[in-house]
C-alpha cells in the first residue's frame, strides 16, 4: 500500500474513497450515509449515486459532480479508475484503481446475490482487495430471500387483521423488499412511511418496478388491517407507530438471523434479508479476485483477517471509524 493509505486515500491523485469528512476530491461508492457525506469539493460517482446524494442532501451538497458510467475507465494523471457494479443498492459500485500496473479494488458495500432493484454484482480480479466485512463471521449465512418474503406473506394469511409494520432502511432495503413482494405476485398497494417516499419515487424514475405504493396518512381513519407498511426502524420504535392497532413488528436485516437481537428490538417477525455479502460470499469473493493482500475496511475484521491467514493471504484490518452499516442496524 504505497500509493494508497489506511484512510482509503489515493495519494497520486489526492483523492479519497468514501471519506468521512469533507475533502477536496472524493470518489463515492454508493449513497448510504456512512459512505456518502455532504460537503466535498469534487465528487466522482455514478449518475444514480449523485442523484441520491442530491435527494438526500440537496443540489449543492458538493461543488462539482462528475459522473462515471459503469465499466468505463477514467484516467486521472497516472491512475486509472473504473467502476464495477457492487450489487448493493441502486448506483453502488466497486472502485478499481490501477497505478503502475498494480490493481487495487475497493468493494464499498456489496452483495453477489441477484437483485432486481440494482445492477448485478460483477467480480473483478485484482492484486489488492479492500473489502467490507459487515457480516464477516461464519455465523452469518443469509438464507434465500424469497423464502424470507414468503414468511411475511404467510404471516399476513395467519393474521389477516393485524397490520404488518416492516422496519426497513429507507435507501435500498425498502425498494428491494417492495420488489421482492411484487416478484411473489403480491399486487396490493404497499404503504410506506413518509421518509421512504422520495427514494421510492426515484427508483421508479430509474425504471425499477415497484407497483403501487402509498404514503401512510396518520390522520385518516384507515385501520390498515392486514396491510404491509414499510417504515424506518426508528419510526416503528417511536410514537408514529401508535396509530396501528395490534401490529406485528417485522424487521428486515441481516442481523435478524440472531434471535436475541430480534428479541432485543421487540421484533416479532424477523426477516433475514441483507444487502451485504454474507460470510460465504465474502470469503468466496476474496478467493475469486486472486488478491494477495486483503484490507478490511469495516465490520467483523478479525474473523476475515484470521480466515485470510488460514488461506495464505495477507490480511489487515483498517477499522475505519464511522461505518455503522446504517442500512442494516
Amino acid at each position, binding site marked *: 500500500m504505497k500509493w494508497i493509505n489506511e484512510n482509503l486515500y489515493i495519494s497520486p491523485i489526492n483523492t479519497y474513497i468514501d471519506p468521512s469528512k469533507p475533502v477536496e476530491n472524493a470518489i463515492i461508492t454508493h449513497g448510504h450515509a456512512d459512505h456518502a457525506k455532504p460537503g466535498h469539493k469534487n465528487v466522482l460517482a455514478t449518475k444514480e449515486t449523485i442523484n441520491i446524494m442530491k435527494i438526500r442532501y440537496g443540489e449543492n451538497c458538493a461543488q462539482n459532480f462528475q459522473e462515471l458510467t459503469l465499466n468505463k475507465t477514467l484516467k486521472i494523471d497516472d491512475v486509472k479508475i473504473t467502476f464495477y457494479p457492487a450489487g448493493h443498492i441502486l448506483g453502488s459500485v466497486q472502485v478499481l484503481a490501477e497505478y503502475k500496473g498494480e490493481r487495487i479494488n475497493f468493494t464499498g458495500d456489496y452483495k453477489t446475490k441477484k437483485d432486481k432493484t440494482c445492477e448485478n454484482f460483477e467480480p473483478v480480479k485484482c492484486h489488492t482487495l479492500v473489502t467490507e466485512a459487515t457480516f464477516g463471521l461464519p455465523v*452469518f449465512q443469509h*438464507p434465500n430471500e424469497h423464502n424470507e418474503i414468503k414468511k411475511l406473506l404467510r404471516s399476513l394469511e395467519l393474521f389477516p387483521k393485524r397490520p404488518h409494520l416492516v422496519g426497513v432502511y429507507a435507501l435500498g432495503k425498502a425498494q428491494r423488499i417492495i420488489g421482492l413482494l411484487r416478484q411473489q405476485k403480491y399486487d396490493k398497494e404497499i404503504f410506506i412511511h413518509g421518509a421512504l417516499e422520495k427514494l421510492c419515487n426515484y427508483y421508479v424514475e430509474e425504471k425499477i418496478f415497484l407497483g403501487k405504493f402509498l404514503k401512510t396518512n396518520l390522520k385518516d381513519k384507515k385501520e390498515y388491517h392486514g396491510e404491509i407498511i414499510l417504515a424506518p426502524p426508528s419510526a416503528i420504535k417511536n410514537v408514529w407507530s401508535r396509530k396501528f392497532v395490534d401490529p406485528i413488528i417485522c424487521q428486515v436485516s441481516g442481523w435478524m438471523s*440472531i434471535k*436475541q437481537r430480534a*428479541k432485543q428490538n421487540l421484533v*416479532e417477525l424477523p426477516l433475514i434479508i441483507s444487502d451485504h455479502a454474507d460470510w460465504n460470499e465474502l470469503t468466496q469473493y476474496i478467493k475469486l479476485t486472486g488478491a494477495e493482500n486483503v484490507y478490511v475496511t469495516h465490520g*467483523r475484521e478479525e*474473523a476475515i483477517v*484470521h*480466515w485470510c491467514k488460514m488461506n495464505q493471504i495477507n490480511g489487515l484490518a483498517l477499522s475505519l471509524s464511522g461505518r455503522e452499516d446504517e442500512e442494516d442496524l
Partner: protein
Amino acid sequence: MRSFSELINKLLLTSSRNRKVDVLCDYFKNTPDPDRGFTLAIITNSLEIKNIPISKIKEIVRETVDEELFALSYDYVGDLAETISLIWPNKENGNLPQISKMIGILKNINKNESTRKIHSFLSIANETERWALIKLISGGLRIGVSSRLAKTALAKFGEKKLDDIEKIWHGIDPPYENLFKWLCDTGPIPEIDLKNTFNPMMLANPLEDKDFINLNCNNFVAEWKWDGIRVQIIINDSNIKIFSRTGDDISLSFPEIKSLEKNMVILDGELLVGRNYIPMNFNSLQQRLNRKKVSLKHINDFPAFVKLYDILYLNNDDLREKNWEERRNLLENWYYKNKNEFFDLSKIINFNSWKNLTAIRKNEIIDEQHEGLMIKRKSSPYISGRPKGHWYKWKKDPKTVDAILMYAVRGHGKRSSYYSDFTFGLWDGNQLSPIGKAYFGFNDNELKILDKFVRNNTIKKFGPVREVEKTFVIEVAFDSVNSSTRHKSGVALRFPRIKRLREDKPTSEVIQLCEFKLEFL
C-alpha cells in the same frame, strides 16, 4: 422437532403475555399426544435430559469449525445455542424425529454413538431446529415462559380454572395424557396422591409504601420473615416429606426431622438450623443444603428445625379455603399436640398501629435471623401463587457500599449483547480485592452506560471475561454479608445488586476491605 422448534422460536419473539398464552393454546390444540405433553414438560422444567454434557457438543463443533472463528462468533453472538445453530456448516437431507421420540433418543443415547448421532442431527436440522435441539440438550430454554404462564395457557385451552390445574400439577407426570384428556373433556380430573404431592405455596408481594397507608391494620397480623428456606412438610403415618418452595423433594438432606404424627398433615414453614429454636445465620444453613449425603457431624453442628407458618391439610381435610385465623387455630392445636425438638411455632407479633410495627421492625429485628416482616390478612384463604392483596413481605432495608468495577462478562438471553455481569471490589491496601458479582439492579439506560464503559475501557481479556480500567465506582446494595472461606476476600454478599452508578465518585474514596468487614460482618 419442527413444530417444537417453531413454537419456542415464536414464544421467544412474542413479548406480550397474552399472545404467548395464545401461541401455546394453538400448539396444544394442534399437536397430538404425547408430543404436546413432552413439550409442556420441557417448558415447565419438569423434564431434564442430562445425558449429554454441553462440553460434548462443543467438542463436536470444534471438530467441524475452526476454533478461532468459533470463538470470535461466540463472542459476537453471546449465546452458545445460537452460535452453534448459525455456524454449523453441514447440511444433510432428512427430518428430525418428533419431540417425544427425540427425548427418548437423547435419554437413551450411549456414549459410543452419541458423537455420530448428534453430528447427524445437527446436519439434518434447519437452523431453528438446531437451536432448539441444543437448548433442549443443555437444559434451560430461557424463552421467557414461566410454568405459571404455561399453566395459564392450559387453563385457557381447556376452559378450566387455573387454581385447579395448580392443585394437581405436582401430582401428575409427563407426558400428562390424563391431564389433556381432562382438558379436552374426554376424561375426569386426574387423581393425585396427596401424601406424596407438593402443593404450590402461597407467596407474598413486596410491600410498597403506597399500599401501606391504605391498609387497615386491624385486618392484619404480622410475624417475622425468618431467614431460612421456605418448606412444605407432608407427614403421614410418621413418614415425613420435605419440599422446597419450587417443589423439589429435599427430605434426604434433612433425615433428622421426625414426627410421630399418624394422621396426614401438610404444613408450611421455614427450615432453619440452630439449637433451642434459635436460628443460626443463613451461612450455617447453607452447609446443609444441596448435599446428597448428610454426615452425623453436619447434623450435630447444624441441627435443622422448622418454624411453622401455616397448615394446609389435616386428616385429609383440605384447609386451604379456610381463613388465616381458622387455620392458625388448627396449626396451634396441632403444634401443642405434636411438639418436639424439630417444630417450633412462628410467633405472631403484637402491634396496634403501622407506626408501632414500623418501630418493631426497626428496633427488634435480628440481622442474623430475620429477613424482615410478613404481614398477612386475617381473612385470606391459602391461595397458591402470588395473589395480590393478601400477604406482604416487608424486607429489612438493604445495606450499601460503594465499590469499584473490576471485571465484566456478557449476559445471557435477552442481554447477550451487553456486558451485564459485573464483578466489583474494595481496596485491600493499595490493591483491589473482588467482593462480589451483580447482574441486575440497574435500568436499561444504566446498562448501556456500563456496557459502553466496559467496551471502551478493557485492559485485558480472559476468554469471555474483560478486565476494565479501575475507575468506575458503583453503589452496590445487598441484604447481608457472610464470612466465606471460598472467596479470597473472605466475604460473601447475599443478593447483591447495582443500586446506582457513581461515576462522580473518585476511587480513592472507596473504603478498605477491612473497614467493610468491621462495619458489616
